[in-house]
């Protein structure tokens, strides 16, 4: 049996908040025809009659006579088959939608109280309505939105509902109030280690690469340095989850670090990852100790659009190699088999689409669609900028936009990827930045 909502979308102006149900013209289980009067509601100005928009049977009534319903609320449903009288539409929902009666049994504390009920209703079969923030928080905590009642307008699930659900779960699981997320997505790179004592170096790769781009540099860093290499959204292990803006990338990286218990970190970012590091620092959720940027994005509009498009489009190792050659000052610096390995990664289901989608939204019309010069200027920690003088992807001239406190290193004979072309020097400069932060 399919059911269709009966609702009043707008009543008497945009600041009107609620309507009063004056009377239902039909009873639950009665047949209705398109155009039949179903229910009369009162708005600030007048009584409004709501008519059936289809033939069927009145299935459920969520707001009885004399009750107030928020504008946009579902007042009841029409079914396409004759409902069995007395059938409860959906366990758990019917209890919360029944009109209040004086003889109600002991209320279940998990059910919304009758007065709040209207806004938490979702017609059966419809998708959960949740704010983008609530959706993101629920995904991070492994919560199923279908199990959560929304307290916002139209029954929308908001952050407060997620918070309340997590609090309830935490009380349920153990008295100490510690919460174990049901299905936290963890990066395969680093095991979650809650409450880290020291600040790790977080390495963020560039567009079209993945965390393995750091493998030559990591062993050359100072012995005391702990590293976490993250995959950007839409890349590597995160290929299934592309991002459309630099801010979204920053949010997702921030969420991942939070899950790992990383509260403070040294940031190292290359190219798009450099832009992501700046956006992450700007978010302010993470205590950033130092920043090392390798040919970062976000310091000017220019970018080699052909390179970005070619990288996202290449389907053969030969084609990909052509573009990878553009990345480096000296093509022999590319490790043997790099193109084949990169291509294998791209061939995995969805990776190419994710890359192409990200290229389109991050670099619209061949320009960098984000400006992080001010984010760089706002940093109050040791900051180092490393750029190859032969960079053919992002112009080295962008380095001139760095504020005066930034140490700028321009490398002769090096192209866009110092970490591959000059791993020892890159490792030394990262180590020096980290140590200078104390």
């Amino acid at each position, binding site marked *: 049996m399919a059911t269709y909502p009966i609702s009043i979308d707008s009543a008497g102006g945009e*600041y009107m*908040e609620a309507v009063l149900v004056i009377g239902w013209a039909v009873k639950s289980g009665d047949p209705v025809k398109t155009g039949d009067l179903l229910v009369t509601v009162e708005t600030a100005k007048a009584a409004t009659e709501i008519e059936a928009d289809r033939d069927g049977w009145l299935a459920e009534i969520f707001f009885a006579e004399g009750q107030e319903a928020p504008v946009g609320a579902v007042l009841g449903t029409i079914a396409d088959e004759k409902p069995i009288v007395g059938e409860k539409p959906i366990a758990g929902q019917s209890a919360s939608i029944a009109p209040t009666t004086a003889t109600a049994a002991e209320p279940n504390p998990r059910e919304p109280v009758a007065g709040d009920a209207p806004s938490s209703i979702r017609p059966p079969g419809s998708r959960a309505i949740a*704010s*983008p*923030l*609530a*959706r*993101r928080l629920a995904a991070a905590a492994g919560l199923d939105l279908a199990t959560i009642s929304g307290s*916002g*307008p139209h029954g*929308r699930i*908001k*952050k407060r509902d997620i918070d309340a659900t997590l609090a309830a779960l935490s009380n349920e699981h153990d008295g100490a109030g510690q919460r174990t997320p049901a299905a936290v997505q963890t990066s395969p790179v680093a095991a979650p280690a809650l409450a880290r004592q020291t600040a790790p170096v977080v390495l963020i790769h560039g567009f079209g690469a993945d965390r393995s781009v750091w493998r030559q540099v990591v062993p050359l860093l100072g012995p005391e340095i702990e590293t976490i290499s993250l995959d950007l959204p839409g890349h590597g292990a995160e290929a299934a989850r592309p991002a459309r*803006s630099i*801010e*979204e990338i920053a*949010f997702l990286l921030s969420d991942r670090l939070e899950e790992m218990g990383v509260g403070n970190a040294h940031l190292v970012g290359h190219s798009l990852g450099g832009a992501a590091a700046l956006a992450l620092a*700007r*978010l*302010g959720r993470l205590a950033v100790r130092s920043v090392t940027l390798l040919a970062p994005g976000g310091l000017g509009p220019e970018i080699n659009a052909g390179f970005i498009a070619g990288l996202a489009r290449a389907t053969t190792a030969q084609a990909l190699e052509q573009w990878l050659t553009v990345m480096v000052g000296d093509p022999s610096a590319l490790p043997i088999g790099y193109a084949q390995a990169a291509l294998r990664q791209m061939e995995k289901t969805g990776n190419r689409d994710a890359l192409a989608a990200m290229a389109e939204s991050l670099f619209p019309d061949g320009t960098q669609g984000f400006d992080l010069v*001010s*984010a760089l200027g706002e940093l109050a920690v040791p900051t180092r900028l490393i750029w190859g003088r032969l960079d053919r992807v992002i112009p080295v001239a962008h380095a001139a936009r760095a504020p005066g406190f930034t140490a700028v290193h321009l490398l002769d004979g090096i192209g866009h990827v110092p970490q591959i072309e000059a791993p020892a020097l890159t490792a030394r400069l990262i180590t020096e930045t980290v140590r200078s932060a104390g």
Partner: protein
Amino acid sequence: MAMMRYAEALNAALREEMQADPSVFLFGEDIGRYGGVFKVTKGLMEEFGETRVRDTPISEQALTAMAVTAAMTGTRPVLEIMYADFVPLTLDALVNQASIYNYIWNGQVKMPFVLRTQGGGGAGAGAQHSKSLDSMLAHIPGIKVVAPSTPADAKGMLKAAIRDDQPVVFLEHKLLYNTRGEVPEGDVTVPLGKAATLREGSDISIFATSKMVVEALKAADLLAADGVSAEIVDLRSLRPLDVNAIVASIAKTHHAVVVNEGWRFCGYAAELSATIMDHAFDELDAPVTRVTLPDMPIPYSEPLETAMLPSAEKIRTAALKTLK
């Protein structure tokens, strides 16, 4: 710091820039002998003479073309268009000349002029003298559009606008001219392209422009009494827009109200809403709410005009609705 009226702060900025740079000159209708209908240019003709402060005939179209050519040939003109309602007469020079010459001549020309004008309702000036055409102007790439809300910003941003090599449309508001505030003394500029957070808050971000900033600050007081902590961000630079400041505020409050005195449809508030969704969608816990003028002419009748204009009370209502 000195306590100044908004109009006096503008006058000080013009005087200082004219003293510092002989290529700065002013022209417009009734700006010389009469000192401007809002007295912004009062005393400047006496001080700088009739060559650098010029009264002109009534032809906004000719005046704006004159600003374009004067700017291209090495001066820094400041043109006053008496009412923003007359801006449509200037549009050919803005859309087909000022905004694109640098581009079509491969950067060989600079276009350092300022077009000052004032708009806004609330003064009973009727349908032809009360409009806010910010959206129409901010729509044009190649032109900066700024709208300071405080005397300090009025002075600092006008100085920065005069020194800018791009055309800058400088939007004032007739009800701001008499507002008073502290203004830093001496040669202090306020960079174009930066928003100002005038009040910190944790529950909801209210982004406003021009005189609506004053209304938003009043709304924040009303909301405080409702138990709501509102953050007020003054979008004093309409274009370029300080997206970073907007995102940072929403990342904190997760709720946004955008306020602009222009019309709703295709308006600046719509642009702000879309920008927020582009850059901070996953931080939103509720849809962005717009507070704007309804899509109608502005009535002369005071009760009708009051009913139409965005106000502190309407901003408060919108904020409470957004937080539901």
